[in-house]
C-alpha cells in the first residue's frame, strides 16, 4: 500500500537548502564583482593620478618654454647665432680676398731703380711697360753682350721672380742693338 503522507519537514529543509545555496552563490558573485570593480577602479585611479602628474609636469615645462621672457631671450640668442654665422661667412670671403691682395704685386719705383742701377754702361732705356706683374723694358746697347750682361746682372739681384729675353736686333742706322727684357715681379711686397 502506497503511503500518502506528506513530509513537510523534508520539503522545508530542501527549499531552505536551495535558497541558502542560491544566496551563497550570489554573494560570491557580488564579492567577485566588487573586488574586480575595486581592482580596476584602483588601477584607473592610479592611471588618472599618473596622468595628472604628467599633465602638471607638461604644463610647468610648457610654461617655461613659452614664457615670453624666455622666448625673447631665445630669439636674441638665435639672432646672435645667425649674426655670427653671417659674420663668419663674410670673414671667410674677405679673408680669401685679402690673401690674394697680400700676395699681390705692388708696382712702385723699386724694381725700376733695380733695373736702372744694374744697367751696364752702354745700355740705355727706350721704354718701360708694366703689365700683369711683369716689367718689359726696351733697351739699346752698343754690343750684343751688353744685353746678356744686363740680363745676368738682373738675375743676380735676386729681385725678380724671373728675368728673360727672347733675342735682339741690330739697327744699322743707329748702330745699336735693341732688345726687350722681361722681368717678372715677386708678389707679397
Amino acid at each position, binding site marked *: 500500500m502506497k503511503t500518502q503522507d506528506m513530509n513537510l519537514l523534508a520539503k522545508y529543509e530542501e527549499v531552505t537548502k536551495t535558497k541558502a545555496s542560491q544566496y551563497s552563490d550570489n554573494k560570491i558573485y557580488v564579492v567577485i564583482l566588487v573586488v574586480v570593480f575595486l581592482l580596476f577602479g584602483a588601477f584607473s585611479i592610479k592611471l588618472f593620478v599618473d596622468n595628472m602628474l604628467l599633465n602638471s609636469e607638461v604644463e610647468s615645462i610648457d610654461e617655461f618654454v613659452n614664457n615670453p621672457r624666455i622666448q625673447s631671450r631665445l630669439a636674441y640668442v638665435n639672432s646672435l647665432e645667425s649674426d655670427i654665422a653671417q659674420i663668419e661667412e663674410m670673414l671667410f670671403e674677405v679673408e680669401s680676398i685679402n690673401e*690674394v691682395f697680400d700676395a699681390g704685386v705692388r708696382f712702385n*719705383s723699386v724694381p725700376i731703380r733695380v733695373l736702372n742701377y744694374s744697367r751696364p754702361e752702354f745700355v740705355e732705356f727706350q721704354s718701360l711697360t708694366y703689365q700683369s706683374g711683369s716689367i718689359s723694358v726696351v733697351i739699346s746697347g752698343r754690343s750684343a753682350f751688353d744685353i746678356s750682361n744686363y740680363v745676368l746682372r738682373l738675375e743676380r739681384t735676386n729681385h725678380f721672380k724671373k728675368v728673360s729675353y727672347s733675342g735682339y736686333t741690330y739697327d744699322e742706322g743707329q748702330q745699336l742693338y735693341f732688345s726687350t727684357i722681361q722681368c717678372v*715681379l715677386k708678389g707679397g711686397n
Partner: protein
Amino acid sequence: MTISKRERFLIFVLILVALILSFIMFVILPLNQSIQDNEIKLSELELQQSQIEIKLALENTLVAKREDKLIQLNDEFSEIEQPLLTAEYERWVLPLTDKYNMRITQASLGDLEVATPDSQQMFMAEPSYRIKELVMQYLGDSIKEDFIPSTESVLLKQSHTYNVVADYENYLSFLDEVTEWDTTVYISASNYNFDVNTATFTFDVYSIHKIEEGDERDYSGDYLGDSEYYDPTTDPDYYPPK
C-alpha cells in the same frame, strides 16, 4: 520567475566581462593613451627645455664671440677700400699729378664692375721631366711649385687709365706715393716712354661694402689745383639767398 544556477553563473560572467571591458574601453585605454601622449609631449618639451637652457647659458659667450668676430671682420674690411664715386677717386689722383708736375693728356674712367681680385702675379711653371725629377730626388731637393693664391670671392672693381706727360723722377715718385696709399688701389699697368717723357697708368680700384664705414676722406668743396680747395658751402655769395 526562477533562474537556474547555470543561468545565474552565465549572467555573472556576462556582467564581469562587461565590467572589465567597460573599464578597459572607457577608462584604462583612454587614460593610457593620454599618458603616452603626455609622455611624448613631456620628452619633447624636456628636450626643448634643455636646448633652451643650453642656448641661454651660451648667451654671454655668443655676445663675446660676435664682438670678437666683428672686430676681426672690421680689421679685414679695413684693408679694402669702400665703394667710391669716380669723381671721388679723382680726388686721390689729381692732387698727386699736381704735386709731381704731371700734365694729364687723357683720362679714361671705368664703371663699377664685379670682379675677382687679381694678385698681378705671373705664374711660373718650371719645365719638368723624368731625369730632372730623379736628379732632384737624388740630391734630396724638391721641385718648388709656384703658388699664387686665388679666390672665388668677388668684390667691386673700377679701372681708370691716365696718360700723362711727366719726367722720369716724378714718374717714379708718383708710383711710390700710390703704393703708400696702402689700400686696394693697384697700378695694374703702366708705361714710360723715355723719348717723349710720357707715361700711362692704369689703376685697378677694388672696393667693398662694409658693416662699419671707415675713416672717410674729405670730398667736400672743390679742388682748385696745386693742393688748393674751395668750399662753396661756406661762401655766402655762392648760393642764391633763401
